[in-house]
């Protein structure tokens, strides 16, 4: 069983289109994340949701809109795609939004396998 699964794994589209990437976790975690890894391999957090509530929004263009219908799902919708949106998008989850000091656990992030988006 895949703990954090993303679909699609590959996505090729034209500039200006709208696309969505879906993510599901079966770990029973409260918190989910979206990360973007660009061609230089820099892995940057975009959003985080805790129990369907947005808790992190890291200066991402408003063309990107996350949606969490329930705590096991976090989808990413991107409007008006641009060339610079080409990247690998990773979904992740953690048991809680915090780490050991308050939550008594490592705050370990579990990542999906990524969705490679190519904008032409």
């Amino acid at each position, binding site marked *: 069983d895949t703990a*954090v699964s993303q679909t699609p794994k590959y996505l090729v589209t034209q500039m200006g289109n709208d696309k969505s990437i879906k993510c599901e976790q079966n770990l029973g975690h409260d918190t989910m*994340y979206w*990360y973007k890894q660009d061609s*230089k*391999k*820099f*892995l*940057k*957090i975009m959003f*985080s949701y805790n129990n369907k509530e947005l*808790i*992190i929004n*890291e200066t991402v263009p408003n063309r990107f809109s996350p949606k969490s219908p329930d705590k096991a799902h976090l989808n990413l919708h991107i409007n008006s795609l641009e060339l610079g949106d080409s990247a690998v998008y*990773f979904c*992740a989850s*953690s048991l809680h*939004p*915090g*780490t*050991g*000091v*308050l939550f008594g656990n*490592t*705050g*370990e*992030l*579990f*990542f*999906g*396998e*990524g969705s490679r988006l190519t904008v032409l």
Partner: protein
Amino acid sequence: LAKTTQPISMDSYEGQEVNITCSHNNIATNDYITWYQQFPSQGPRFIIQGYKTKVTNEVASLFIPADRKSSTLSLPRVSLSDTAVYYCLVGDQIPYSGGGADGLTFGKGTHLIIQP
């Protein structure tokens, strides 16, 4: 912000012990130090986490000096399959506390290449 600095790349050979050091001069009292490993075309995977002194698990050891301004990930007897990018993260991962996303911020990591 507890930013981190790691070497961009390192080379070693099978069977050797590899130590990757991460500098985090501005680490805060509540910050934990976490290391992840990423293989090509995969998401990062948690390796180890520590607060101070030494932590060891079945995969690696993490050495943290008393001032906590740096940390060293130690991989014993590496194999070819340890070739990967290793990321050091520092923060409390608690966005409510005002620490923002520091503990969730991955830098460029260290590309470790193991040769036969």
